[in-house]
């Protein structure tokens, strides 16, 4: 899998990431929880990795469910 095809969505809590994972699972949008890359955040938790093509639907789904988004970055 080519990492550059992906983006990561940063959230404030592991449980927020898990909520996004559950919601995207219901919509059949593939995602994976991965450790937050250190160059993106000093946080020690996880973030949600999605395909670049799914970023818009993932962000919309998260926001609609009231999950606050800390940031969204291409994964190099």
């Amino acid at each position, binding site marked *: 899998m080519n990492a550059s095809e992906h983006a990561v969505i940063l959230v404030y809590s592991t449980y927020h990431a898990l909520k996004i994972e559950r919601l995207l699972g219901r919509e059949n949008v593939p995602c994976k929880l991965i450790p937050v890359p250190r160059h993106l955040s000093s946080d020690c938790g*996880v973030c949600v990795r999605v395909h670049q093509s799914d970023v818009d639907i993932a962000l919309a789904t998260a926001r609609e469910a009231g999950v606050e988004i800390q940031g969204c970055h291409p994964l190099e």
Partner: protein
Amino acid sequence: MEKVIYLDNAATSWPKPPEVAQAMQRFMEEIGANPGRSGHRLSVEAARVVYAAREAVAELCNAPDPLRVVFGPNATEALNLAFSGLIRPGDHVVTSSMEHNSVMRPLRALVERGADLTVVTCSPQGALDPADVEAALRPETKLIAVTHASNVIGALLPVAELGALARRYGILLLVDAAQTMGACPIDMQKDAIDLLAFTGHKSLCGPMGTGGLIIGERVDTRALAPLNRGGTGSQSEREEQPLFLPDAYESGTPNTVGLAGLAAGAAWVLAQGIARIRAREIALTSQLLDALAAIDGVTVYGSRDGRRRVAVVAFNVDGVDSSDVVSRLDEDFGIMSRGGLHCAPAAHKTLGTFPRGAVRFGLGPMSGANDAAAAAAAVAAIAGEAR
């Protein structure tokens, strides 16, 4: 082990569905990591277990969001979080005379620190009139806090009416669901419940050491101070407590093995269906109430209508101390019950059973008609000897 009839489910449910211990063993043997504290697969899997518990609990009470389920060790800590976090000197709280000490003691402590408390008297049947609650409201009233069902006689309090009342006056409603979560339909959103304290080890069939507070959307979390502050695995660069849910109120490593069991217990309850569990417990409670009431020399407390109470039955045998009845039931009949005041002196004063107390049978999801019949027969034998 000698066969026992366990009728102390109002204290804790037992036996649990086998899935509960299996889930806990699986967590200990196959997951084991600290949830939300790292990005490795075992930590994420541990957090998934906790999130599954949030989802199941939220579904059982129609909470607005699984992230609003804050876990802690028990309903008591949840109540302490709500009361001490929300109530300031000068604030007024209204509660009922059927409360457990888990509500009464933290509120009495707040009175010593300058808050004001009105205890609305319930009927000797344990009924609370919402009009009496409305009459107790003042401009400085911040919270109505009541049990959903009495832990002594099972009487259900009118939480939906109180929710409507609280909305009308712009105040908050807290419900202590220790006896009802997993046993009765609860709808936080429809019934306008702002704070719901629950335990995991009673009708949710989870292990002891699990419980929590569900925080409704009308609660301003900036005005709800945490009971504890500390590590949450989130915003680790900051030395101040995060404000977002659930992390704001979940400092320190949680009882994840317990929550694995709670997730399994709550899933079992969901699979059974609350409506089915409730119908079964109404039938069993009515059977036990009728059988006990028919015995000479036995006084049964509260409504005889099983639909107006949860599966908790309190009674006394004329001329026999409740603790002696409990001992006889155990030693001669293998029946587990509880006597005394059940940590609820106010409720016993309301019922007219203070300081004597009463004997309590707590039926549960694993109780059967034969258990209720055996219990009534044992009480009849004890009462017969006392006459």
